[in-house]
């Protein structure tokens, strides 16, 4: 496939650094650091106590090593746990007050925070390093009763909601990184959709790591009350840095009776250079709970960035007739490693889950799908369909599939299919014989491979994802 060699190797587009003065605390972690974070955020006491409990628990936990990825030990005392762009006042009250440099950063990223220029239909919360720098369309949302704000704001403005739902899906003791996040999380997005409301806008959070040696620990909590609907988009980028940076986020979703949450991610953290230097460690816990009957949670993810991606957006299908979905495209190019998949826990009757996973490995990439489908004894007529396909480009990469299927109910119907393929010389020749260039043929075939996932993304995101995949693959076929 020599035509692919002709593909110009494109540098990571989002690798610039923004020069803003940061208010950061020195690296390291102890109780005082947590108290300081909480103080800086002017949090109520319950929040601080929760953080401290999580920290105590974290101290007793061990870093997990079962996953199919390898990386040097992380020195947790060498990480800056809080970094915020310094602003003249306490915090931006409106977008006008947001630092110009930051607004420009987001513009460069293609995330318009300026409401004037904004295409109708998406409300954005932007998180820069550790803090939210602005949320758009607040007024529109307010009219229908939707709360969409930064997590810090929610802690202050809606403590009762935060207190009620925080940690109900991902308890702080859930795992090592969830505990760490619970102790030190700095910001994130909070979203509450009241009963019967169909959120009129796509909600979106844009995450950006800017400062050096900083860990980003954001936390997102979405609560969809009875009969409501929300579609939420998440995007991420970071500057090019030689040193690896840790990103350990937690996302919790709660869907009540008849509610529907659609959560889409396009993850494009800096992946490291061609030789595997630098890049983000993306260790994330994402879980949703279909608490009420007929509720539905749908995860769609396009994972093209990060040096290491390690996450399993999961759904607990607690209510009867609930639906869980997971659509994923994960790319491991150069020296990237991805160990990702989902867990579908069927508890209620007539629960249904669908898993479509597309893994692409190129150059030295290492891609692992790991998934659990569990049907509990009471989950009558539970249904699952899983399809995991791998596409390998080059003979130095690898693709692994590790599904776990546990069924304790005879009325369950569980189906798992997996296949592996490559872009064949014959396909390339066929396309070329029709006049299509090699680069376009590769990108066409890869996008075809991912089609079932892309169609679940909102239109604009799908286009962006397809482009991103093309760019991320450049220089990989050779």
């Amino acid at each position, binding site marked *: 496939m020599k035509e692919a060699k002709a593909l110009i190797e494109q540098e990571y587009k989002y690798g610039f650094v923004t020069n803003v003065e940061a208010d950061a605390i020195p690296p390291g972690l102890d109780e005082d650091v947590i108290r300081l974070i909480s103080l800086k955020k002017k949090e109520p006491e319950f929040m601080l106590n929760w953080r401290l409990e999580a920290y105590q*628990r974290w101290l007793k936990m061990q870093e*997990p*090593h*079962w996953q199919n990825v390898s990386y040097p030990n992380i020195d947790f005392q060498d990480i800056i746990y809080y970094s915020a762009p310094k602003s003249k006042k306490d915090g931006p009250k409106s977008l006008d007050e947001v630092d110009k440099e930051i607004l420009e950063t987001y513009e460069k990223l293609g995330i318009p925070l300026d409401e004037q220029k904004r295409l109708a239909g998406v409300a954005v919360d932007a998180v820069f390093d550790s803090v939210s720098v602005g949320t758009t369309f607040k007024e529109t949302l307010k009219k229908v009763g939707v709360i969409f704000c930064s997590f810090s704001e929610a802690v202050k403005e809606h403590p009762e909601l935060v207190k009620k739902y925080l940690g109900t899906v991902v*308890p702080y*003791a*859930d*795992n090592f990184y969830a505990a760490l996040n619970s102790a030190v999380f700095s910001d994130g997005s909070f979203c509450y959709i009241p009963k019967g409301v169909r959120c009129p806008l796509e909600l979106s959070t844009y995450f950006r790591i800017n400062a050096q040696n900083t860990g980003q620990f954001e936390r997102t909590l979405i609560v969809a009350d009875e009969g409501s609907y929300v579609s939420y988009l998440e995007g991420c980028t970071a500057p090019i840095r030689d040193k690896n940076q840790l990103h350990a986020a937690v996302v919790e979703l709660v869907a009540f009776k008849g509610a529907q949450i659609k959560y889409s991610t396009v993850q494009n953290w800096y992946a490291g250079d061609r030789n595997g230097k630098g890049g983000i460690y993306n260790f994330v816990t994402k879980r949703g709970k279909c608490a009420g009957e007929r509720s539905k949670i749908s995860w769609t993810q396009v994972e093209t960035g990060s040096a290491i991606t390690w996450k399993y957006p999961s759904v607990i299908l607690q209510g009867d007739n609930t639906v869980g979905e997971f659509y994923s495209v994960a790319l491991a190019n150069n020296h990237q490693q991805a160990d990702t998949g989902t867990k579908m826990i069927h508890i209620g009757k007539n629960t249904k889950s669908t898993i479509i996973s597309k893994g692409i490995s190129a150059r030295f990439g290492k891609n692992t799908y*790991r998934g*659990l489908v569990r049907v509990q*004894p009471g989950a009558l007529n539970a249904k699952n369909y899983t399809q995991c396909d*791998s596409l*390998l*480009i*080059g*003979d*130095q*990469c*690898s*693709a*692994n*599939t*590790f*599904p*776990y*299927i*546990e*069924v*304790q*109910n*005879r*009325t*369950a*119907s*569980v*189906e*798992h*299919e*997996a*296949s*592996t*393929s*490559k872009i064949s010389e014959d396909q390339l020749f066929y396309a070329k014989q029709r006049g299509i260039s090699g680069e376009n043929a590769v990108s066409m075939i890869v996008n075809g491979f991912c089609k079932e996932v892309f169609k679940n993304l909102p239109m604009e995101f799908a286009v962006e994802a397809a482009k991103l995949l093309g760019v991320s693959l450049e220089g990989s076929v050779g």
Partner: protein
Amino acid sequence: MDARAWEFEGSLKREIQMIMVQDQKKDKHSKALEHYESLFHGLNATCKSSEPSWLEVLRRNAFLKFSQIGFPTTKTEAWKYTNVSEIETARFQNVQRGSSLVVKEEFDQMFPFSLNGTRLVFVNGFFAEHLSILPNPQDGVVISSLDLAIKTHPEILKSYLTRETNTEDVFATLNKAFIQDGVFVYVPQNLEIKNPIHLIFIQGESQSLSLVQPRNLIVIGPRSRASIIETFFSVSEHAYFTNGVTEMVAEEGATLRYGRVQAEGKKAYHVYATNVQVGKESSFSSLVLDLGAKIARHNLNVELLDVGASCNLNGLYFPRSGQHMDHHTSIQHQKPEGVSRQLYKGILSGASQAVFCGNIFVAPGAQKTDAAQANKNLLLSSEATIDTKPQLEIFADDVKCTHGAAIGELDPTQVFYLKSRGISELKAKEILSLGFAVEVLNHAELETTHEYFETLVKNQFEGNYCEK
């Protein structure tokens, strides 16, 4: 790998409980090891004079390794779904050679199948010559008990038994530490052994808690053909433990067929490893049928070592109430152009459990590998549990690998169709279940032993169908 860590960790309370339990467990582990140490010394005392020194060294090193690792827990990934603490805590005992004598009439009554060809019968793990039918000697072919072969062919046995393996399970290590008897088959090049070679292991009624550790070694030379059928059979009501290993080598261009029937007694524990090495352009096919035992585990490891090696693995398991059946298969495609096929099916009734874990590994450079694996399960009872884990690990790009797993009930439209033709519901289910199983029999290349397996499968379903 800590398998549990991946699951949702529970509350602090559970953690504390775990720590408390751990202390008790430690005690359990060390007591078990002490017990096996005494068994090991007991065996040494009786064997020392008769066995060659290399074998003694081999056994001693194996025991050392076993005592370092110890019995697995459900935290060990490979034993996540099969709890062997019952095996660990039971105090099984070595059986003395010749301790239980079964006369031919008794045997014929116990084992009601007439099988053609060669047959080697073992009672409580020891070769019973009077029950066996050995073929006329053929140029260079060796078919004998392992015990005898150690004396007659020490060099060959030494070279195969002392090979280093990295895939050895701790139970196989334990078996190695207690090597005493089993079967040795050696077929030189360019020979076809027409009739299947039956290896029949029966457990007499004699004593409770016996520990039987057979070890078989089968070597099929270049371009030769042979079929080996192992049957583990017992009507014993006692608890006993069969911990066996069969090692097979199919050299370049050889064809090896392997059948295995596990029909141990109701209270038996059965842990068995079959390790197969398949050479250049040679082919291995197998059918394993699991019917008996309380807890049964079979590890089938197939290494496709050279270009164009192929394997076709088939399995059927029918656990009923109180039974736990676990199949772990591993296929390693080491070189290009290997082909592997795999079809395992289970029918679960009553409060039974089954586990299937199938791993397909494609090494770097093993291009043009073609691997397909399927695991299908029928759940007939609401108390049955199935855990299945089909896995692919692929390090080459020009390969075709697929796997699939399916779990479900009998298709109600099919049941209805049969009922509408006047067939009772029970009979309809029986017919459909049998049909589900027969696909595997047809998929396996059984040739002359097809009938034997078919009879065993039919017996399982006819009349005594589904206790719910």
